[in-house]
């Protein structure tokens, strides 16, 4: 492949599948984690009284809002692991198939 024809690759069905899947996965999870995250400052900013829901003690002295903050760590790590799993299973496999197709192309 001395000269790569990028528009040909862009039209390749495998590439289009890869691109569609990637965009859907990445945009979806990024939005989800971002919305989940901004819930924290918005909720914290609106929690002022000790009687507010966010300040309700849940486990021992730990309030609900505190658990929500801890959940950010859990979600971030979960997304990282799920993405690794997903990418290995779909994105990397599709990329390899695409590259193989391109190499064996007559």
């Amino acid at each position: 492949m001395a000269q790569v024809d990028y528009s040909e690759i862009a039209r390749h069905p495998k590439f289009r599948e890869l691109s569609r899947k990637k965009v859907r996965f990445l945009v979806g999870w990024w939005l989800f984690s971002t919305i989940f995250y901004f819930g924290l400052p918005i909720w914290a900013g609106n929690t002022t009284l000790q009687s507010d829901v966010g300040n309700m003690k849940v486990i021992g002295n730990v309030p609900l809002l505190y658990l929500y903050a801890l959940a950010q760590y859990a979600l971030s790590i979960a997304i990282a692991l799920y993405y690794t799993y997903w990418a290995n299973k779909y994105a990397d496999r599709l990329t390899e198939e695409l590259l193989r197709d391109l190499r064996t192309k007559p």
Partner: protein
Amino acid sequence: MSTILRLAAFRLGLLVATMIQAPAVAGVDTAGAPALLAPAQVPAAAASVAAAAPYAVVKSNKPLTIGLFVIIIGLTLAIVFWAAGRSRKKSGFYAARSSISGLQNGWAIAGDYMSAATFLGMAGLISLNGFDGFLYPTGWMVAFVTVLLVVAEPCRNIGKYTVGDILSVRASAKPVRAAAAVVTVFVSTFYLTAQLVGAGKLMELLLGVPYSMSIVGVAVLISIYVVFGGMIATTWVQIIKAALLVSGGALLSFLVLLKFGMNPLRLMENVANNTQIQSWVQTKLGHVTPQPGLDYGQRYLEPGLFLHGVWDQISLGMAVCLGAAGMPHILMRFFTVPDAKTARKSVVVAMFIIALFFLLTTFMGYGAATRLTPQGIAEVDKTGNMANPLLARFLGSEFHPMLGDLLQAFVCAVAFATILAVVSGLVLACSAAISHDVYTKVIKNGRADQASQMRAARLTSLVVGVVAVIIAFAAERQNVAHLVALAFAVSASGMLPAVVLTLFWKKMSTAGVMAALLIGTFSGIGLVLVSPNMQYPQLIAAADQKVFAALETKQAAGTTLSDTETTDLANAKTSYAANKDGTSIMGLAKPLFPLKVPAILCIPLGFLSAFIFSLLFPSKREQDAFEELYVRQTTGIGVSASVAH
């Protein structure tokens, strides 16, 4: 005697130290830094209200600490000389020949990301503010989701040495490279200066080494690392430092939890029931007498002790959550790995390390709060930056006084190694931007030979080091909060839109890239200059006035003032007189922009200007080139070794 003198000198220097040390120690990688500086606006008198902590000996065991410093420096220098032989070529110097493994790069990213801010600053912030302190590391953690999902792999697939490589794939190369280099140097130098000032202050306070000597010493060391070792050495310094940081954090957390049966819930319970913390919270809330029905200890685990109102919270959230993905020295780390898959793995590894360490920070923070009391920590340093060294001494001394010395020395050495490592990464990013983007690509039109490029790279590393030293000298008695805040504003509102839209938006044009870099960057700088991060003497004076008015009313009512109150009164009056007619650097009496972090305005502005200018000045050629860029960033064709042969 000398200890007492030093303590006295320390207190005198408190305001200066607070201003200077905080950004460096407490927030170089962080948008939190400007907010951390907020206590500096508190009137001078408030400090002495705190109860004196008998164990608050700042000075460390000198031979022991120096010994540990020397061991760490020796270890890192050995790596540098080992690496020197491996970084003779440009690809080795800047990108470690793309030979770093995912695991190694993950540790190195964690090392780049966790500056002394996380180790010293976070624990301090939590120990003084409870829950609000915990919001900082939480945001920085979530930031890595954006790095992972949006920038890591495309950067690996498109870039080679610098952010300029990514931006110039389809835009006009020269102006974009030049602008990217300017922005990179801006961000990094502000960071760098603040780190240097922080290192200088740390050494001065802990070891009694003069400020100027520490600065020069640190700068010389870093120049050696970078000039001789390049990216390979820098990577290994990061890895070692990250490992030291995590083990230091784990050790301190273990010692904290040991007292509470290894049960974090019991630690929290102890925090909520601590009478000193309760009175600290009461003072913080400004309640003269306890409000009935309010559980002050529990209040410490609730929001609102540090960040006030929802807009402050959201703006900070935006900066911490988006800033990391625009940091040149973080983005550069993805060029050191062979392919996108490794880039992905390295982010995941980094996320695990960072999550673990940030959670440990809470144990250190709460441990410091309950064992040392917030009053005791604030007495030593109002920003709380000394919480960890103090905690280490306190916990170690419970076993043996010598162990207290040793543990504190270890913690200080770790903080020192952290500063060294972070600064090396920053110098390298600057050097790459100047010599690769400006010298090779813009001045020499890409026709410089390997040897002259290497000469340029080493020379620029040296120049950046020297410039940072000069600025650090000038900044010794300056409030460098704005420098750090600038770095953040720049990265999140200039670099981020430029990179993300280049990678993902077909219509992005040269005009858009330039607009994002320049308008985003300079609006950020402008907003910081008129924000509450700057010092507003008249506001300090107003706060002082409140303090002495209250005390004078008390006096007028016939109450005799206690010794501390008399001192407070005198201090407040002096401070008031000194500040009542002053204005900020911009000549303002009070901030024009109300929020501590300008992100909420300048990040959207950066993106918006990129959109508007791209649509106003579209480029057919650049739109056509998007297809190629998109294919490359998605698949890695054209860069990855697995293709094309």
